[in-house]
C-alpha cells in the first residue's frame, strides 16, 4: 500500500510539473520574455531570499551551537582538559570567521542585485587588499598551529617509567584487556600461539604455552592425516576433498614451523617468555584504571583495524594488526564521581570501536571503570594470572599477536628513545 502511494505521488508530482511547465511556456510566449532575462522582480525576490536565508541559517546555527556544542561531560583525563580548551578556542575562532565571511557574502549578494540603471564597479584587483587577506589568515593560522602543536606534544610524548601498562586488544567484535602483573612487563605474544583449545586467546608465550600449542597443532595434524587414511581405505572421499585436507595439513605444518621459529628476547633483563606468566586478563573484559595515575595503553589487533575510542577521556588510537600502537593518559575523575556529577547512577565511561571493522562495528564496546588505587588493586587481586587461568580447568583468557621479532624491535627503539631523553 505504502509502495503504491509513493509511486502514485511521484507520478502525480511529475505530471503536475509537466503541466506547470506547459502553462509557463505559454505565458512566456505571450509575454515574449526570454529565459535568460532575469526580471527585476526575480532579482529582487532572490536578493530577499538571501537575507531570509542568512537569518534562518545563522539563527539555527546559533541554536545548535548553544544547545549541542557541549553535550559530552567534562573531560575525565588530564590532557583532555587542555584539549577541550584548545577545541573551544578553535571553535570560537572559526565560528567568528563563519559568521563574518558568510554574512558578507549573503549581504553583498542581496545588496547588489541587478538593476538596469546601475553599472558594476570595474575593480579587477587591489594589491593592498589582497595582501591584507593573505597576511591576516597567515597570522591567525600561525597562532592555531603553534597552540595546537604545543598541546599535541604534551599528549604524545613517552609515558613515564612509573606508568601503569595496560594492553587493549581488539577482535571482531570484542575487546581484551591485559595487565602486566607484578613485574609491570607485558609478556611476549605471537599470533601463531593463539589457541582457543588451551584458552590462550591472546597468544601469550611462556615456557609452558609453547609445548602446549605444539601439542594442539600436532593433534590437529594427526586428525587430518587420519581422515586421509580412512578415506584411502574406504575410497569414500572425492579427490578434491583429499586435496583440501592435504592442503590443510600443509598449512598446519607451516604453522608448527612458525611456532618453532619463535625466539626469546629480554626486556629490562627479564626473559620475555617469563614475563607473561603473571599477566592478568580482565574477565569480564573491562578496562579498570586507577584515578590520578599515568597509564600507558598499548594497543594490538587480532584481525582487522579497529580504533579504541574513549570519548569521555578525549582519547583515541587505532589498533592495527602487526603494528603495535600506544596512547598515554591520566584519568582524573572516577566513575563514581562522574555518576554523581551527572546525577546518573548508571553512567559508565566507554571504550568503543571507531574504525569500520565489520557488521557489528556499531556495538563493539567495553566499560571503562576509573576507581581509587585501593579499589583498583582490590579488583586486580580478584583476577587470575595467565598461568592460573591456563590450567585446563579454569579458562577465560584472551590475546593477541605480533611477531616476536617486531616486539623486540619495538622495545629496542623505545629504549633508544628513552636514552636520548
Amino acid at each position: 500500500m505504502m509502495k503504491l502511494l509513493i509511486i502514485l505521488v511521484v507520478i502525480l508530482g511529475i505530471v503536475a510539473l509537466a503541466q506547470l511547465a506547459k502553462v509557463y511556456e505559454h505565458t512566456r510566449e505571450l509575454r515574449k520574455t526570454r529565459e535568460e532575462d532575469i526580471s527585476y522582480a526575480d532579482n529582487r525576490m532572490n536578493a530577499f531570499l538571501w537575507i531570509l536565508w542568512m537569518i534562518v541559517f545563522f539563527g539555527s546555527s546559533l541554536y545548535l551551537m548553544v544547545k549541542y556544542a557541549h553535550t559530552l561531560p567534562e573531560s575525565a583525563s588530564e590532557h583532555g582538559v587542555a584539549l577541550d580548551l584548545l577545541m573551544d578556542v578553535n571553535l570560537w575562532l572559526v565560528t567568528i570567521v563563519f559568521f563574518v565571511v558568510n554574512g558578507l557574502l549573503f549581504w553583498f549578494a542581496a545588496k547588489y542585485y541587478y538593476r538596469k540603471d546601475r553599472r558594476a564597479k570595474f575593480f579587477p584587483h587591489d594589491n593592498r587588499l589582497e595582501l591584507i587577506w593573505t597576511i591576516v589568515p597567515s597570522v591567525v593560522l600561525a597562532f592555531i598551529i603553534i597552540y595546537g602543536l604545543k598541546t599535541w606534544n604534551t599528549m604524545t610524548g613517552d609515558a613515564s617509567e612509573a606508568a601503569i601498562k595496560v594492553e587493549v586488544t581488539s577482535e571482531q567484535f570484542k575487546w581484551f584487556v591485559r595487565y602486566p602483573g607484578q613485574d609491570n612487563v607485558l609478556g611476549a605474544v605471537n599470533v601463531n600461539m593463539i589457541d582457543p583449545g588451551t584458552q590462550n586467546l591472546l597468544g601469550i608465550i611462556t615456557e609452558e604455552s609453547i609445548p602446549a600449542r605444539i601439542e594442539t597443532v600436532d593433534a590437529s595434524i594427526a586428525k587430518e592425516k587420519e581422515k586421509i587414511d580412512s578415506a584411502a581405505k574406504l575410497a569414500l572421499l572425492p579427490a578434491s576433498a583429499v586435496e583440501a585436507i592435504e592442503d590443510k595439513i600443509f598449512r598446519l605444518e607451516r604453522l608448527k614451523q612458525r611456532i618453532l621459529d619463535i625466539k626469546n628476547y629480554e626486556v629490562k633483563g627479564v626473559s620475555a617468555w617469563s614475563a607473561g606468566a603473571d599477566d592478568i586478563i580482565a574477565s569480564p573484559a573491562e578496562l579498570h584504571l586507577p584515578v590520578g595515575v599515568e597509564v600507558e595503553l598499548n594497543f594490538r589487533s587480532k584481525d582487522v583495524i579497529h580504533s579504541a575510542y574513549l570519548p569521555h577521556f578525549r582519547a583515541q588510537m587505532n589498533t592495527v594488526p602487526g603494528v603495535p600502537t600506544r596512547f598515554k593518559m591520566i584519568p582524573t575523575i572516577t566513575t563514581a564521581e562522574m555518576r554523581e556529577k551527572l546525577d546518573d547512577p548508571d553512567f559508565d565511561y566507554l571504550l568503543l570501536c571507531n574504525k569500520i571493522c565489520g557488521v557489528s562495528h556499531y556495538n563493539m564496546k567495553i566499560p571503562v571503570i576509573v576507581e581509587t588505587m585501593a579499589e583498583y588493586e582490590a579488583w586486580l587481586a580478584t583476577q587470575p594470572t595467565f598461568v592460573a587461568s591456563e590450567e585446563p580447568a579454569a579458562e577465560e583468557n584472551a590475546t593477541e599477536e605480533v611477531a616476536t621479532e617486531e616486539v623486540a624491535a619495538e622495545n629496542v627503539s623505545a629504549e633508544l628513545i628513552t636514552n636520548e631523553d
Partner: protein
Amino acid sequence: MAGHGHHEESFVSKYIFSQDHKMISKQFLVTAIAMGVVAVLLSVLFRIQLGWPSEPNSFVHFFLGDRWAPGGIMSGGAYLALVTIHGTIMVFFVLTGGLSGTFSNLLIPLQIGARDMASGFLNMLSYWFFFVSSVIMLTSLFVETGAASAGWTIYPPLSALPQAIAGSGLGMTLWLVSMVLFVASSLLGGLNYVVTIINLRTKGLTMTRLPLTIWAFLITAVLGVLSFPVLVSAVVLLIMDRSFGTAFYLSDIYIGGEALDVTGGSPILFQHLFWFLGHPEVYIVLLPALGISSQVISTNSRKPIFGYRAMIGSIMAIGFLSFIVWGHHMYVTGMNPFLGAVFVFTTLLIAIPSAVKAFNYITTLWQGNIRMTPAMLFSIGLVSTFVTGGVTGIILADSALDVQVHDTYFVVGHFHIVMGMSAIFGMFAGVYHWFPKMFGRMMNTKMGYAHFWVTMVCGMGVFFPMHFIGLNGSPRRYYAYSEFEYLNATVDLNVLISVFAIIGGIAQIIFLFNFFYSVFRGQKASQNPWQSNTLEWTTPVEHVHGNWPGALPVVHRWPYDYSNPAYEEDFVPQTVPLKPGEEEH
C-alpha cells in the same frame, strides 16, 4: 578532425562512439546524473535506518528485498554496503568522472578556441572506460555476497579478507576492477586535457588570458595524472594480497579460527598510498567547481573576477600543497607524532590560498550588478559551503583536536559541506550556465530557483547538524546510534537530518525534470545568452564538428572585461581588439 564536419554521420558514430568533445561531454553528464540518482537513493535508504533505527519500512523493503532487509529492516551488512557504494559513486563517478568529464570536455576546446581535443580517440576511450567502470560498480550491488562494505576508503585487512566481512568477497573484487578501469579513464582524460590546453590554444590566448575554468581544469588534470597511478598501485597490491597470497598489507592476523600465514606487511602502507591519491582527490573534485563558479560569478556580477592572478596563484598553491598533506587522515594510526606535526603545518597552510579565494569571490560581488540566474545562486551557495565546510577543516587539521573528532560525524559534516555540497553546487551551476551551449536550449529559470533554495536549505539541514553529533563523540559508519546511552543526546538531530535528507533527495526530481524537459522542450537559446566574454559563446548555437564554421577566433584580451568603463556595453568579448591606447588588465 578539423574541417570535415560535413559528411553524414551514422547514429552510432554520432551518439555512441562519438569522438566529438561536445557529445562526449554530454555522455559523461548523463552517465553521472544516472550514477548520482543511484547514490542519492542509497543515501536516503541509509538515512531512513539512521533516523528510525530498526523500524520496519516498506520503502526500504521495496528496494532491498527480503535478503538485505528482512521484514523491512535493513541488515547491518546492507547498511555498510550502502554507505560504501554511496561514497564511492559520489566521490569518483559523480564528482570526479562526472564533473571533470563533463565540463573539461565541453569547455576546454570551446574556451581555448580549438577544434576539438588533442586526441578525439583517447577522449572516446576515456568515456567508455568510465562507462564500463560504472556498469561494473552498479553490478557489484547485485552479487550474492553483497557489494563492497569496507567504506569507500577500503582499508585492508577488512577489504582484503572475505572472512572479515561478506562484502569483501566478489563485491570487493568488482569494486577493485571497476576502480582500475576508472583510473584508466581518468588518466586518458587527464592527459588529453593537459596536452590540449598546453598546445591547442588559439592565437593570442596566452596563459594569463585563460579563463579561470581552464586554469582549474588544467591543475585538476595535472593532479589526477600524478596521483591516480598511485591509487592503481595500491589497488593492484591489494588485489595481489586478496587473490595471490602476497602480504603487502597483511601481518599477524588471526581470523576465522586460524592464524594466517602472512608476515611483514603493513595495513598502514595502504593508507599512505590511498591518501596520496585521496587527498589530491579532494581538490580534483573541488577545483573544477571553483573554476566554474569563478566564471559564473564574474559573468553574472557583471564585474571582472577580483584578483585574477591571485586566483591562478591560489589554484596552483592548493594543487601543490594537496600533495603533501595526506597524513592528516592518519593522525591516530600510531604514526610518529613528529610526522603528524609536519602534516598539521602543511595542512593548515592550505587555508591561506583558500581564504584568498573566498575573499576574492566576495569582493567580486561587492558593488556588482548581480543577475540572479540559477547558476549564479548555486555559485554563491558554493562560496558559502566552501567557507562553512572549510573552517571546520581547521579543527580537523589540528592533530590534537583530531584525536577527539577523528572518524566521528564531525568529519562527515565537514567533508560533505566543503567537498560534497561545494562540488555538486559547482556542477549544478555549470549545468544551468552551459546548458544552452550543450543542448541549444534554455533551462527553466523558475524551476532552477526552486531547485536551488530547497537544495541549499536541505543540504545545510543535513550536514550542518552533523558537526554537533560529532562533537558529542558519535563514530561514523555506525548502523545504529541506539546502543550507547551517551549518544541519546543527539538522537533528535539524527531524525532531523533524515527528514532533510529525504526532502532534499526528492527535490532533485525538480532538477531531473527540468533537465530532460528542457533538452527537448526548452526555449531555443540565443548565441550568447549570458552576455559573456569567453570564446564558447562565439560558436553557433547548433553544434558543428570543429566548433567554428570558419576560421578560429583570435583573442585580444583577458576574459573578464565586464563593465569596463572604456566601453559602453557592460561586456567586451575576448575577440574584440584593444582600443588604441587601451591597457590590458
